[in-house]
């Protein structure tokens, strides 16, 4: 049979073995593919497409470029640094007049407003007056509002001249343009995004840590108890899943608010003065408290699934080898629960970073997170700004995911 290793293997009737195998399996593969096709289509339609569309929106806004063709043409002919002369203003006034007819001055103003606040009103005003304006147009416009001669406004026009832009990311990173087309940090009172990102990630990390501290003993107890008892306790852990999130959050409000049960009890037993009740809700402590509770099961389940399969003989072996119970925990038990810790932390953190309802209800002013700002922009139809913030969140989460894969390995992720 030595010659067999030389030539490719063939079937009894002389076809190449590989082709025969592929043919034999083709039918099964086709059927398998057809079976997953509905799910694939569903995921594509409801998950991949919306994300791609969101990413596109975060780079695209044609509010100015589509409605100010003459100004866009002037900007294309005159490179950055050219003097903004009367021809430019003439083009702008003709655009404004067209906008008034098409009722698009608001859309154009909104686009400029993102990177040069306070322009929606001057666009609308100028568009109303555009038909009556006489040359010289520069002086006429400046007479309406001083902002029209601000070189920064024209820098802003130049960047809005194309519908494709990174301006929304610039705003999301608390940056703004300077007159010479450079980037500089936004005014202190406008720097809200980075701070909110930092707060979101910080609070999420804190909530993850609290969940881990609370879930570890619970999961361990569940793992070592006999099946019947642990099943009962598991139901208690899962019970919150069977209640509406809104109801759970509202219950927390009932418990924790200033006139709530907890405060009443504390006042009743004299720990807290009646005029000095603890502020637990409508601030970041409320967000931390309620989100820790809501996300706790997501930490318990992965931990439990990992702990359940750690045989007790490891701990016994360590003890018999001379390790104290603390050393046994630290060097034998804890390292083996790492995949569970990592999976639970990743899950809780990612959920927390994008959490919306709870901070919206109990967060108050200082307990809201980035998702609440995204929601704010969506409510105002600022789709591109919301999309840019969401995309940044997505990228940050993907980086975390990548880090997890590098450090722990994604194939070791156990979610319950």
């Amino acid at each position, binding site marked *: 049979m030595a010659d067999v290793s030389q030539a490719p293997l063939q079937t009894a009737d002389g076809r190449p073995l590989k082709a025969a195998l592929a043919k034999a399996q083709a039918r099964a593969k086709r059927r398998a593919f057809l079976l997953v096709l509905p799910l694939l289509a569903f995921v594509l339609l409801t998950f991949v497409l919306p994300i791609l569309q969101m990413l596109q929106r975060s780079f695209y806004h044609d509010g100015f470029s589509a409605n100010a063709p003459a100004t866009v043409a002037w900007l294309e002919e005159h490179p950055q640094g050219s003097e903004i002369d009367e021809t430019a203003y003439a083009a702008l006034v003709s655009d404004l007049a067209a906008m008034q007819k098409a009722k698009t001055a608001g859309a154009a103003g909104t686009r400029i407003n993102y990177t040069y606040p306070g322009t929606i009103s001057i666009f609308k005003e100028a568009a109303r007056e555009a038909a009556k304006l006489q040359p010289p147009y520069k002086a006429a416009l400046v007479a309406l509002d001083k902002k029209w001669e601000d070189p920064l406004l024209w820098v802003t026009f130049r960047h809005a001249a194309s519908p494709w832009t990174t301006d929304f990311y610039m705003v999301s990173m608390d940056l703004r343009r300077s007159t010479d087309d450079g980037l500089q940090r936004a005014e202190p009172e406008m720097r809200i995004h980075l701070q909110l990102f930092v707060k979101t990630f910080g609070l999420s990390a804190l909530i993850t840590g609290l969940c881990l501290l609370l879930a570890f003993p619970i999961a361990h107890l569940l793992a070592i108890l006999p099946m019947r008892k642990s099943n009962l306790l598991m139901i208690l852990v899962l019970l919150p899943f069977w209640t509406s999130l809104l109801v759970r959050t509202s219950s927390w409000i009932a418990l924790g608010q200033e006139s709530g049960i907890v405060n009443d009890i504390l006042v009743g037993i004299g720990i807290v003065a009646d005029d000095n009740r603890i502020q637990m809700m409508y601030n970041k402590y409320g967000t931390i408290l309620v989100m820790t509770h809501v996300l706790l099961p997501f930490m318990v389940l992965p931990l439990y699934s990992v702990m359940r399969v750690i*045989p007790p*003989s*490891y701990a*016994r*072996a*360590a*003890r*018999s*080898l*001379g*390790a*104290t*119970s603390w*050393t046994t925990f630290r*060097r*034998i038990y804890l*390292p*083996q629960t790492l995949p569970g810790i990592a999976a639970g932390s990743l899950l809780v953190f990612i959920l927390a970073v994008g959490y919306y309802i709870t901070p919206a209800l109990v967060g108050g002013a200082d307990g809201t997170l980035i998702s609440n700002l995204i929601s704010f922009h969506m409510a105002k139809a600022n789709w591109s700004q919301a999309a840019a913030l969401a995309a940044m969140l997505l990228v940050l989460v993907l980086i975390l995911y990548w880090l997890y894969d590098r450090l722990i390995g994604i194939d070791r992720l156990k979610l319950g």
Partner: protein
Amino acid sequence: MTSPNEAFVAFEHVQKSYDGVSLVVKDLNLAIGKGEFLTMLGPSGSGKTTTLMMLAGFETATHGEIKLDGVNINLVPPHKRGIGMVFQNYALFPHMTVGENLSFPLEVRGMGKSEREAKIKRALDMVQMGAFANRRPAQLSGGQQQRIALARALVFDPKLVLMDEPLGALDKQLREHMQFEIKHLHESLGITVVYVTHDQGEALTMSDRVAVFNDGRIQQLAPPSDLYERPENSFVAGFIGENNKLQGTVEEIGQGTCTVRLATGEVIDATPVNVTQKGQKTLVSIRPERVEYKPELFPAGAHSIDAEVLEFIYMGDMFRTRLRVAGSEDFVIKSRNTQGQRMLRPGEKIKVGWHPQDARALDP
């Protein structure tokens, strides 16, 4: 063997209950000498593993004293007992390499790096696994993991090593090989070994003495040959090896010998073990290989009884013949396949007999 006051390990009136209702270990008294290889053998639920766990410190005795080297260790936590232990499924730490596994007991004892390395090397060489220090347990075969578990239990030079069915997960050939290796390690290191198994072959092969457990009690504590040849009660006779049982009543009893009348009327010779007087019910136990069916081999003056061949099984090195004897249909004799050995045919009528010392009259 060893008297309790020079025993290295001693159980004194030890009882253990898990639920407060029933006793898993009932009044255990056991003295294990220094350097001895003692096996606890018994069916599952007999209390042997519980006894081992009490010695290791993972279970506390409900009553009684456990002494190690003369000191009561009832309240000493497991990590301070200094007892090496090999677990059923090895319990090698999966997140550590073989070297780290062996290093662990030395590190927790605060041993320096160079000393640790020397001891690890010595222990790995002892089990012929010197080249595997950097592997992870998952990369080793069952037999190799077994060796590492052994090396880890020995690396910190414990005076006492406990083994809880350590060979249970290995295939037959490897198991037999490891039995000899463990035996040799025991002999060369001079350590005391307490070994738990439910495999009687393993117990007989390796041990200096075997303690047969059943129902929370030691049924017999004896060297392997005594256990096999001179079982002291019907449980031990039935548990260790194969044996034929005949029910009867003591007819005559003398010095070291007795006659027993079987239920069907025949009279046989036996050695009284735990019968003391005439008229007592008894169960006579005879090993299949000690039954003779050639009249010329019957001992002079001994009784022989009628038998009918029911089945003949050719086993290669042995013949196994099932007979009807005194109404019992599972009386078995074993004969070696020697040159000229006669093969019995089913239906053949023969007579069987035995030396009185091979038939032991036990409790019914």
